[in-house]
C-alpha cells in the first residue's frame, strides 16, 4: 500500500523534481521559492514571538524586575522590526502568493523566476543583518526609528538594523514587481480581469503598494544613516533639521505597509469564505475594487499618526476625514463576506474557522481604528496601549489569522498531505481565545492612560496586564500546535488529493503537490470564477 502510494505520488511533483540543497538554493521554481520563504519567515516569526514573550513576562508586574530598561527597550524594538519587516510584510505574498499566483492565473511560473529567487536572497541578506544586530547587542529605537533619538541619541546598533530593513525592502519591491507583471501578462487565454480569483486582486493591490511605497522608506532610512553617520542635518534640529519631517516620510510608507500586511489576508479570506459556503463571493466586484481603493486611499492618510506631533490643525482635519474614507472599503468587505455565507452550504473546516476568526478580530481592529481617526479621541489614545491593541487586532488578529487560514487551506495543495482535523480546530479556537485575552484588556489599559513602550508602570494597571500576559501564554501555545502538526503531516498526514475542499480555483485542478510546470497544457478559461458544481468530493477537514 505504502509503495503504491509513493509510486502514484512521486513522479511529477515539484518536491521530487531534484533533491539536495543545491536543487533548492538554485531553484527558479516559484513553488520552491515559496517554501524557502515559508521556512525563513517561520524562523523569524518564532524569533519575534520570543521577544513578545519576554515583553509580556516583564509586564506581568509593575516593577522592572525581570529585565533592565535598556534590555526591555531592545525587546520591543526587535519584536517590532522582526515581526513587521521580516514576517508580516513578506508573509502571505512571498509564501502563498508566490506559490499560488502562477497556477491561479494559469501560468507555469512568475514572469521573472530568477528575480523571484533573487528577492529571497535579498530577504535573507537583510535577515542576516538583523540577526547580527540581535546577537551583538540589539537596537532600542522602537521599530519606528523616530528622530532625533535614532540619529543622535541612541547608542545601539541603529545603522546595522537600518541596513537590514533597507535591504529587505528590495526583496519586497521585486516580489511586487513580479506579481504585477505576471498578473498583467501571463493570464491564461480567457482569464479576464473579472474572472480572476479575489486572492489575485488582493495581491495585485498589495504589489502596487510595495513598489510605490517601499522606495520611500528606503530613502528615509538612507537619510537617517546619513545623519547618524555623517552628521548631515536632516531631522535633528541641533543640526538644522526637522524631526517631524521624519515622521511624515516614515508613515508615508509605514501606513500603506499596514495594507501590505492586511490586503493579502483579505484575499485569502475571500477565497475561503466562498469555498466553505460553496457560493460565489457576494459582491465580487465590490470586494475586488475595495482592495484597489484601500491601496490608493491608503497613501493619503499617513498624517493620522501625527495628530499630536505639532502638525497643523487643518492638516489634522484633512487626514482625519481621509482616514474615515479609507475605512469604508474595509467595511464593505466585511459585509460582503457575511452576505456570502447567507444561504450557503457552510462547512466549519479548519480554514473556515480561522477565516471566521479573522472577520471577528479584523472587525474589532477596524472599528477601533475609527476611535483613533477621530481627532479629539486620538489626542487621549495615541501612544497608549489602545494603539497597541488596535494594531495587533489588525496585524495579528487580521493578518496572521488570514495567513494561518490560508496556510491551512492550501497546505494540502502545497504538501499533498492533510493535517489532523481535531488538533487543527483546537489550535484555531485556542488562538482566537488567547488572542482576545491578550489584546482586549489592552484597549482598556490604553483608555485608562497607560502609555506604550513602558518598562515600569503604575500598579493600578497591573490587573489588565496580568490578564494580557495570561492570554499571551495561551496564544503562544496556540501558535506552537500548528507548527507541530504541520511538521507531522509532512510524513504522516493523509494524502489530500487534488481538491480536498471542493474548491473552484485553477490551482485545485492540478495534482497536489503540483508538478514543476503546474499545467501540462495551458488551460483555457471559459467561465466565471467560483462556479460551484455538484462534484464527487469527499471533504477531509
Amino acid at each position: 500500500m505504502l509503495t503504491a502510494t509513493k509510486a502514484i505520488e512521486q513522479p511529477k511533483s515539484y518536491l521530487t523534481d531534484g533533491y539536495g540543497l543545491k536543487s533548492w538554493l538554485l531553484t527558479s521554481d516559484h513553488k520552491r521559492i515559496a517554501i524557502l520563504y515559508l521556512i525563513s519567515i517561520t524562523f523569524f516569526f518564532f524569533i519575534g514571538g520570543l521577544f513578545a514573550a519576554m515583553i509580556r513576562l516583564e509586564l506581568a508586574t509593575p516593577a522592572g524586575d525581570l529585565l533592565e530598561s535598556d534590555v526591555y527597550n531592545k525587546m520591543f524594538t526587535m519584536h517590532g522590526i522582526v515581526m513587521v519587516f521580516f514576517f508580516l510584510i513578506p508573509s502571505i505574498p512571498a509564501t502563498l502568493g508566490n506559490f499560488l499566483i502562477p497556477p491561479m492565473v494559469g501560468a507555469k511560473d512568475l514572469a521573472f523566476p530568477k528575480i523571484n529567487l533573487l528577492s529571497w536572497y535579498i530577504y535573507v541578506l537583510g535577515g542576516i543583518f538583523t540577526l547580527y544586530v540581535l546577537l551583538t547587542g540589539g537596537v532600542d529605537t522602537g521599530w519606528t526609528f523616530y528622530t532625533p533619538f535614532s540619529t543622535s541619541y541612541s547608542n545601539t546598533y541603529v545603522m546595522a538594523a537600518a541596513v537590514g530593513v533597507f535591504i529587505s525592502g528590495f526583496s519586497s519591491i521585486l516580489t511586487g514587481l513580479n506579481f504585477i507583471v505576471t498578473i498583467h501578462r501571463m493570464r491564461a487565454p480567457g482569464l479576464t480581469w473579472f474572472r480572476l480569483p479575489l486572492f489575485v486582486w488582493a495581491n495585485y493591490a498589495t504589489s502596487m503598494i510595495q513598489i510605490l511605497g517601499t522606495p520611500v522608506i528606503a530613502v528615509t532610512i538612507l537619510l537617517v544613516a546619513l545623519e547618524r553617520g555623517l552628521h548631515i542635518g536632516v531631522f535633528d534640529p541641533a543640526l538644522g533639521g526637522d524631526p517631524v519631517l521624519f515622521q511624515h516620510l516614515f508613515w508615508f510608507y509605514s501606513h500603506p505597509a499596514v495594507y501590505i500586511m492586511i490586503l493579502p489576508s483579505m484575499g485569502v479570506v475571500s477565497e475561503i469564505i466562498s469555498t466553505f459556503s460553496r457560493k460565489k463571493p457576494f459582491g465580487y466586484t465590490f470586494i475586488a475594487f475595495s482592495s484597489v481603493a484601500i491601496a490608493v486611499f491608503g497613501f493619503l492618510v499617513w498624517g493620522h499618526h501625527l495628530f499630536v506631533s505639532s502638525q497643523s490643525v487643518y492638516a489634522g482635519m484633512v487626514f482625519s476625514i481621509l482616514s474615515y474614507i479609507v475605512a469604508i472599503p474595509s467595511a464593505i468587505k466585511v459585509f460582503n463576506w457575511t452576505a456570502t455565507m447567507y444561504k450557503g452550504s457552510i462547512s466549519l473546516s479548519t480554514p473556515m474557522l480561522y477565516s471566521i476568526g479573522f472577520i471577528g478580530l479584523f472587525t474589532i481592529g477596524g472599528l477601533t481604528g475609527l476611535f483613533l481617526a477621530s481627532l479629539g479621541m486620538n489626542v487621549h489614545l495615541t501612544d497608549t496601549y489602545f494603539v497597541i491593541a488596535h494594531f495587533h487586532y489588525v496585524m495579528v488578529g487580521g493578518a496572521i489569522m488570514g495567513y494561518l487560514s490560508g496556510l491551512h487551506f492550501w497546505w494540502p495543495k502545497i504538501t499533498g498531505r492533510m493535517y489532523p482535523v481535531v488538533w487543527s480546530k483546537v489550535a484555531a479556537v485556542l488562538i482566537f481565545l488567547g488572542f482576545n485575552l491578550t489584546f482586549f484588556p489592552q484597549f482598556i489599559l490604553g483608555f485608562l492612560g497607560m502609555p506604550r513602550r513602558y518598562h515600569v508602570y503604575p500598579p493600578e494597571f497591573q490587573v489588565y496586564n496580568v490578564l494580557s500576559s495570561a492570554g499571551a501564554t495561551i496564544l503562544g501555545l496556540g501558535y506552537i500546535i500548528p507548527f507541530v502538526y504541520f511538521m507531522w503531516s509532512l510524513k504522516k498526514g493523509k494524502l489530500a488529493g487534488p481538491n480536498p475542499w471542493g474548491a473552484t480555483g485553477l490551482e485545485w485542478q492540478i495534482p497536489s503537490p503540483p508538478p514543476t510546470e503546474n499545467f501540462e497544457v495551458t488551460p483555457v478559461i471559459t467561465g466565471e470564477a467560483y462556479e460551484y458544481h455538484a462534484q464527487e468530493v469527499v471533504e477531509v477537514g
Partner: protein
Amino acid sequence: MDWNFLPIFPHSASNFAPQVDSLYAYLVLVSAFFSILIAILIVTFAIKFRRKSETEIPAPVDEHSTGGMILEITWSVIPLLLSLVMFGWGAIIFFDESKPPSDAMEIWVTGKQWMWKVQHLEGTREINELHVPVNRNIRLTLTSEDVIHDFYVPAFRTKTDVVPGRYTTEWFRPTKVGQYHLFCAEYCGTKHSGMVGTIYVMDPAEYDAWLTSGTNVGSMAQKGEALFQQLGCATCHTSDGKGRCPNLAGVWGTKVELRGGSAALVDASYVRESIVNPLAKIVNGYDPIMPTFQGLVTEDQIQQLIEYVRSIGPKQPGPPPAIAKPGETPAKLTPVLGQPQK
C-alpha cells in the same frame, strides 16, 4: 462585589474629559453594535446554513439584482454617515484643544531625558511636578532639550508632543482638586517609563500659598532681564533705539518688517529663533551682525529672555499669545491679556 480593581474609566479632571468621554461612549456604542451584528449574523448563518450533505450545492444568488445593489449602497453609506459624525465630533474637540483661551495662565515646560522641568512666570521652578490652581485655564508652552517627548495627562485627556527646536502648546482647565499622573508618551530612550510626574490640582488659596512658599529669586522676566545684561544683549539692543540692533521695548506682539519686504509677528517662537538662529529673519534697516547663541543659553534661559521681552512689550491692549499655532498665520491670532505680576 467591589469592581474597583477593574476600572474602565480614567479619572476625569479637566474641561475636556467629559467631552472626550461622551465621544468615546458614542464610538463604543457604534462599534459594539456592528461587532455584535456581524457576530450574530455569522453564527446564525453558520448554524442555519450548515452543510447538510457533501454534494450539496446552494443556488447561486443573483447579486446583480437591484436588491444586491441596494445592499451594497446601504452598507457603504450608513457606516460613512456614522463615521462623519465621529470625524465632526472629534474635530470640534480637537479645534477647542488647539485654541487656548485668551485668559489662560502661562507655564513653561521643558522635557529632557528623563525629566520634566517647569517654570512658572513668578519664577518658581519644579521638576517632575506641576502645581496648578483648579478652575483656571492653564496654557503650557513646551519644548525639549534633546529628543521628542510627549506631555500626557490621562485625567485631563490631553497630550502634546514636546519637540526639540520648537514650541508646542497644550491647554486645559483642571476641574477637580487632586493628584494626577503625568506621563511621557513619546518613547525617548532608556528611562522613558521613568519620565513621569505628578500634576497637583489645588484650591486657588492653597496654590497661592504654594507659589510664594519657595525661595524665589525673582520672576522669569526679572531673570530674563539679568540675562539680557549679562549676555551683552543690551549693548546692541539699546533702549534708546540708536543701537546697532532693534530696540526690543514695545515690539512684543507687533509685526516687524523684515528684509525683503515680508513681516514677522514677535512671539515666543520668533524670539527663540532670533536667539538661536539670528540670521534667519533680519529686521529691515539693520545689518545681519548678531552671532548665534545656540549652545550658549539653555532652553530655560531662552524662556526667561522671552518673558523679559514680553514684559517690556506694549501695555495695551496686552501681549499676544506666546506662540502661533502651527499651520496658522500669526495675523489670525487674537491678543490676550497679560499675566498679573506678583
